[in-house]
């Protein structure tokens, strides 16, 4: 029991953000027309690439000695960037077509 309280108290800001973000996520998504389901999923997927920040922190503060950890850290940054760059570009490509059509 004490452990749970310690965890809650020492991470209370994070837990508040998590709790409120859940409601925010639900609220923001509701009433989405099905036309936008694919772009929305793709855009959300790009946002989940925010793990790139973790990758940068990790690789940015590692000593650059050749090791398995260094390779894995590098891989984390590469993968995270793929997620972010590819995700946003592909979403934009989908949405570009919606826009073009609206001018008709």
């Amino acid at each position, binding site marked *: 029991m004490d452990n749970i309280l310690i965890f809650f108290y020492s991470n209370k800001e994070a837990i508040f953000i998590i709790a409120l973000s859940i409601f925010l996520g639900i609220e923001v998504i509701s009433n989405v027309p099905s036309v936008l389901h694919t772009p929305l999923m793709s855009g959300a997927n790009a*946002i*989940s690439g*925010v793990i790139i*920040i973790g990758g940068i922190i990790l690789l940015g503060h590692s000593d650059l000695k050749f090791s398995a950890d260094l390779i894995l850290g590098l891989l984390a940054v590469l993968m995270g960037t793929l997620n972010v760059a590819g995700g946003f570009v592909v979403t934009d490509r989908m949405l570009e077509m919606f826009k073009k*059509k609206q001018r*008709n």
Partner: protein
Amino acid sequence: MESILTTPDGLNFTTGEAILELSYLIAAILFVIGLKLLSHPETARKGNLWAATGMLMAIITTLLLHKDPEGNHISLTNGIVVVAAIVAAGIIGWVIAKKVKMTAMPQLVSFFNATGGAASALVAFLELPFVSGTGVVIVTLAGLTLGSISFSGSMIAYGKLDGKVGDIRAPYMKYVNILLLIALLALIVLISSGTIGSEAPQLIAAVLLGLALVYGVLFVMPIGGADMPVVISLLNSFTGIAAAMAGVIYNNQAMILGGILVGAAGTILTILMCRAMNRSLVNVIIGAFGGGGGAAGDREQGAIKEISVGDASILLAYSRKVVIVPGYGLAVAQAQHIVSELDELLTEKGVEVKYAIHPVAGRMPGHMNVLLAEADVPYDKLVEMADINPTLPNTDVVIVVGANDVVNPAAENDPSSPIYGMPIIKAHTAKNIIVMKRGMGKGYAGIENFLFFNDKTRMLFGNARDSIQKLVTEIKSH
């Protein structure tokens, strides 16, 4: 450049630290605004751009201003390595995203989701030896597990959508999956309670990572293509949660908010999709579609009737209302442009043309919308299932282009059918039905479609693009 400031209660901090946190706050706000704008057609593109701006800003400020617990900035050499990696992967991601055909979009989203999952798993794996406190260890292990499942699961989903991986179903697989899940949870409990792995944390974490990867594969393997949209959406929310878990490790609010936002949104989207198929999430995951074929196959069937291109073109040209029901076959045949041409041609002749969009048509929600948008089909012509169904009895011709399960009347009148209860587009209520199909193969769910044996149905066999091309040529020559 950096000066030290003090809060009224005596806490010291530097301007850099403050600016970094401020930039994370702005990034988090941009994520929320971006997602909000993404959910409206007129503002969607702007929303994507705002979210991307937030991400870029967070990346740059992290590089310039982040300090480790000892107060050291990211060194110049490390910075160069990081930037080089970001530029290289950024260009690759950009090129892949630009080059891939519109029809391969669902696979691509699945692939990018896999890379995000992998990044989360790797970060959690590398940070595990340095985190302390039971709670944070559990969070790290959860991130590691979810990220790994998301990676391998999304790769399998990618392979399936790309036709590289088939469905593997075995009755014992359900039990293997449940056992694996129990093993994963047990490992997390044992590691976090310090029972095992305290001497070699990375070794035991590697075991957990390996098990999670295997679970991801086995989790997606038996799920049929018809359910792939649900799975991708679910895995997408896993990636978000995994990223948020990593955010807890770094106490990084932008990561936590961004990750959870995606986790919650992805979960809601998953539930919306399940609801569209009238199935529960558990049913999708455990009970895979179309196991045997069942009793429905033995039912007496009417005869299949074909229609010639000439007859079909006359039927269409002299109709008042035509509704096109697109499905995955349209994507496979790359028929969206020619469908749009047929639409324009008929509209010129005074025919009212609409498209009936089933929520799970294709391999992704909105898949058909994206394809038809590419072919310049106006928005207002795309009508959702609930709105089009009441108008179908007054529709002269319904053209089914490469759709199957979403128009199968068995969902309404055959309780033994695996898709019984799934809402469908009621094509069978129209006055005439033309079904374009390559052959008499079954749909993705692997079940017989009674629409094809309906008295009002005529089949037009062949590749959808060729068939519609012939129709267009024929109608033009009238």
